[in-house]
C-alpha cells in the first residue's frame, strides 16, 4: 500500500512543497527515509514510532520506505514528523488515502504523541496558496501565523490523535485563537527626545527620502535614542511588506511561540562583534537569515560603527546595493530579501572626546586615522547624510517642551513618499535609490541655488559622488517642503547634512 501526502522545505525565506510518499514493503520491520534527509529528518523514525505507540496505533509489521521528493533538495528540520506519521498510518490503512489529498502537513512530534511548534508556518501557508492546495495542518501554536494567508484552510492540532481523527472525519478543531497579547515592543515616540532639533530633522529627511545616515557624537549624546525612533516615523508597512517581515521572522524560528502579523517596522542593532553569518546570513546546515534580513523593511543600526571589523563592514556592500542577500551553497543558492535603512553611529574618536570642550582627547594620531579609515569605500558610498549630535544640557533635559510626536512626523514623511512615488512611478523608488539620470531629470534648481551650488562644489571640494548624494538629499528636503523647485534654503540644509568623513581625516 502506498500513501501520499505533502509537507514543505524551507529555502531562504521561501517554502517549497515536498511530496511525502510512504510505502510498506517486504523485509524486516524497520524504516528508511530517502530523499536527501539530514540528521533531524532521519531521526524522525524514532519519534514517529514512539508517538504512534503511545496513541495506540502500532508500527506496521513490515518494512517502511519513506520518500521525500524532489529527491535532490536537501531536507532540513523536524517539521516532517507529522506528515511522515500520517503517511505511515495511511499506508497501514488506518487513515483513508483520499483524505490526505490537498493537505500540507507540518509539525514535530513528541514521544507522547503531542505536536510541537516549528518555524516556517507562514511560508508554508504561502506555498500552499501558491500551489493551490486546500490547506495546512500545523501545530496549534503556529496556527495564527499560518492563518495570516487568506484562502488557505488552517487546521490546528495539538497531538497526533487529533490529526488522525480529523483526516478520518468526525473531529473538528477548535477555532484558532490569536495570541491575546501580541508581542509588540512599545513604540518609541519621537516626542520623548528633548532638544536635538537638527538631528530630528535629519531623521525626518532620512525617513522621507530613504537615505542612510551617519551620526557622530560623544558617548551619551543620544545617538541610539534617536536611531530607535526611525522605525516609528517611516511610512506604515503595507500588508505585503508586513507579510514579508513576518515570513523572515518565521523562518528564523523567532515566532515558534505564536505571533500575530508583525505590523511594526523592525529595528535591529547588532553588536560590533557580530559574525559574518550573523550579519549577512548563513550558518551551518539550513542557512538562516542574518541581521540585514531581519531588518528588512526596517532599520539596521550599527552603533560604534568604527569598532566593527573592516570585512564585516565591507560585506554590507551587496545587501545595501541589491536589497537581497544570496547565500551560495553546494546544494544551491538561498535568497533572503534585505531592504533596510542604515543608521551608523560613531564617537568622534575612539575615546570619544575629540572636540569636546571640557575633556581632552586621549587618542594617538594613529588611532584616529585608523578609526576613520574603517569608514571608507563601499559603506560610505551608500551613506547620504552625516550629522553631529552633541550632548544636551541639563536645562534642555528638564525644561524643554515636548516636541512633535512620531505620528505627526510620519504623516509628513508619508506625504513626501507619495510625491516620490508619483514622480518616479514606482512604490519602491525613493530619492536615495532612483538612478542618477532620473534624479537629474527632476532636479529643478532655482537660480540662486545654482550659483550657490557652483561655489560649493569648488570650495567644499565635492567629488562627483559627493555631489550626487548632496543632490539627492536636497531633493528630499525640497519634497518635504512641498516644493518642486530646489531653493538655496533646501541646498543649505543638504550641505549641512553632507558626508565629509574623508575630508577631515588629515587633521
Amino acid at each position, binding site marked *: 500500500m502506498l500513501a501520499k501526502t505533502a509537507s514543505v522545505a524551507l529555502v531562504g525565506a521561501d517554502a517549497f512543497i515536498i511530496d511525502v510518499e510512504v510505502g510498506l514493503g517486504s523485509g524486516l520491520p524497520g524504516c528508511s527515509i530517502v530523499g536527501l534527509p539530514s540528521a533531524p529528518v532521519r531521526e524522525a523514525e524514532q519519534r514517529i514510532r514512539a508517538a504512534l505507540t503511545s496513541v495506540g496505533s502500532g508500527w506496521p509489521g513490515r518494512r517502511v520506505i519513506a520518500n521525500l521528493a524532489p529527491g535532490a533538495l536537501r531536507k532540513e528540520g523536524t517539521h516532517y514528523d507529522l506528515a511522515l506519521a500520517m503517511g505511515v498510518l495511511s499506508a497501514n490503512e488506518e487513515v483513508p488515502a483520499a483524505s490526505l489529498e490537498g493537505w500540507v502537513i507540518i509539525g514535530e512530534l513528541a514521544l507522547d504523541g503531542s505536536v510541537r511548534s516549528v518555524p516556517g508556518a507562514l511560508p508554508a501557508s504561502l506555498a500552499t496558496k501558491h500551489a493551490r492546495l486546500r490547506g495546512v495542518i500545523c501545530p496549534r501554536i503556529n496556527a495564527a501565523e499560518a492563518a495570516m494567508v487568506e484562502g488557505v484552510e488552517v487546521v490546528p492540532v495539538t497531538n497526533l490523535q487529533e490529526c488522525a481523527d480529523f483526516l478520518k472525519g468526525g473531529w473538528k478543531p477548535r477555532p484558532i485563537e490569536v495570541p491575546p497579547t501580541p508581542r509588540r515592543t512599545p513604540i518609541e515616540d519621537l516626542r520623548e527626545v528633548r532638544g536635538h532639533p*537638527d538631528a530630528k530633522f535629519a531623521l525626518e529627511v532620512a525617513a522621507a527620502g530613504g537615505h542612510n545616515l551617519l551620526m557622530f557624537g560623544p558617548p551619551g549624546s543620544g545617538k541610539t535614542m534617536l536611531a530607535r525612533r526611525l522605525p516609528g516615523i517611516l511610512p506604515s508597512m503595507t500588508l505585503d511588506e508586513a507579510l514579508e517581515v513576518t515570513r523572515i521572522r518565521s523562518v528564523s524560528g523567532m515566532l515558534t511561540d505564536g505571533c500575530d502579523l508583525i505590523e511594526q517596522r523592525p529595528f535591529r542593532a547588532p553588536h560590533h562583534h557580530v559574525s559574518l553569518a550573523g550579519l549577512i546570513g548563513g550558518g551551518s546546515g539550513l542557512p538562516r537569515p542574518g541581521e540585514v534580513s531581519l531588518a528588512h523593511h526596517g532599520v539596521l543600526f550599527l552603533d560604534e560603527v568604527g569598532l566593527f571589523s573592516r570585512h564585516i563592514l565591507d560585506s554590507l556592500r551587496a545587501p545595501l546595493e541589491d536589497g537581497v542577500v544570496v547565500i551560495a551553497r553546494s546544494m544551491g543558492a538561498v535568497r533572503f530579501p534585505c531592504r533596510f535603512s542604515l543608521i551608523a553611529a560613531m564617537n568622534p574618536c575612539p575615546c570619544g572626546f575629540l572636540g569636546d570642550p571640557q575633556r581632552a582627547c586621549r587618542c594617538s594620531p594613529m588611532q584616529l*586615522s585608523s578609526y576613520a579609515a574603517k569608514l571608507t569605500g563601499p559603506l560610505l558610498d551608500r551613506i547620504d547624510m552625516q550629522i553631529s549630535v552633541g550632548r544636551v544640557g541639563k536645562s534642555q533635559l528638564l525644561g524643554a517642551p515636548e516636541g512633535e510626536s512620531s505620528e505627526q512626523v510620519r504623516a509628513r514623511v508619508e506625504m513626501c513618499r507619495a510625491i516620490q512615488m508619483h514622480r518616479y512611478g514606482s512604490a519602491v523608488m525613493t530619492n536615495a535609490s532612483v538612478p542618477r539620470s532620473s534624479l537629474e531629470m527632476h532636479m529643478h534648481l532655482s537660480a540662486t541655488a545654482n550659483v*550657490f551650488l557652483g561655489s560649493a562644489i569648488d570650495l567644499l571640494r565635492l567629488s562627483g559622488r559627493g555631489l550626487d548624494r548632496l543632490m539627492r538629499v536636497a531633493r528630499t528636503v525640497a519634497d518635504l517642503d512641498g516644493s518642486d523647485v530646489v531653493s538655496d534654503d533646501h541646498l*543649505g*540644509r543638504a550641505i549641512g547634512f553632507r558626508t565629509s568623513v574623508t575630508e577631515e581625516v588629515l587633521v
Partner: protein
Amino acid sequence: MNTVVSRTLEPGHPEWPGALDEIAGAPKRLFAVGRPLDTSRPMIAIVGTRRPTIAGVEIAQSLARGLAQGGFTIVSGLAVGIDAVAHQAALDAGGATVAVLGCGLDVLYPRPNLKLRDRIVEGGCLLTEYEEGVQPTKFTFPQRNRIVAGLAVGVIVVEGSYRSGALITARRALENNRNIYAVPGSLRNPMSQGPNMLIARGEAQLVTSFKDICDDLAPSMVWSRSDEAPQVEQDELAVLDLLDDSPSTSDALLRAGTMEAGQLALTLARLEVRGWAVRTAAGYALSTSGARIRAAISRQPSVAPHRNKIDPLP
C-alpha cells in the same frame, strides 16, 4: 632609506649655526641632509601638540606661512601635529625649514610624516646630533628640543597641554635666553593650557599673528594691504559671533542664537563655502579667516575688513 648621504657639521664649518654655541650642553657636531643651512637667515621655531585642534592647525599654518615668506627659517621637530603642519606650510610658502630629529638620519620616524620628510630633504634640511642607527626614545626627544630652542631666535608654542613636549622646548628656550611666544586659546580648550600658562607666568609673549613676531624681531619690515574687502551679510555675522575654536553642533548653535533652523543651516553652509567656518565630526568651528573677518568687523563696523599680506623689505 638605508644609506644616507649626510654631512657632518662641526664648529667652524660654514654651515655650523653659531647660535648653538650660546646654549648650555651644545652638541659637538651635527649630521645634516638636504639643502645647505643658511646661517644668515633668522630661524624661528614653531612647536606644539601632536593632537592639535582644527584652530591650532590653521594658526600654525598661517604663522609658518607668514614667517617663512618674511624670510624666517621655520625650525621644528618633524613630529605629527603642529610640527608637521609648520614644516609643510613653510615649504608650501616657498620658504626654508629645518627639522631636528630625535634619532639617526637613517631611522624613518615618525611613519606618518615620511612623505613630508622627503619634501624637507628636497626643499629644506634635516638635522640631528645622533649617529645613524640611533632609535628615538623618550630621552632623545627632550635632547632634540634643546637643539630646536638653541637654533632659533624665538620659539612659538601654538597648542599643548600642561605635559606637552612643546613646553620642554619653551623651557629650554627660556633657559637659553630665547624669546618665547605663545598663542592664547580658550580656557575650555585643553590644548591651550600650555600656552595660556606661559602667558600667565609672563614667560611668553602673547601672539595673535605672525606680524606680532615680525614686529618684535624685525621692526623694520613693512606691511602692504590688499584692497579686496569681502561683503559680510548680517546673518553671517550673527552666526560668526556664535562660532568658536572648539566645534559646536548646529543644535547648540540653534539654542544659542535667535535664528530659525532652516536659516541657520543655510547660513552655516554659506560660511563653510566662504571658508569662514569648518565642519568637523563634532560640529562647526571658526576658521582662521572667519576669526579674522569677525575681529575686523567688530573693531570697525563701518569699515570693510582688510586682508594683510606681508612684503619683506628689499
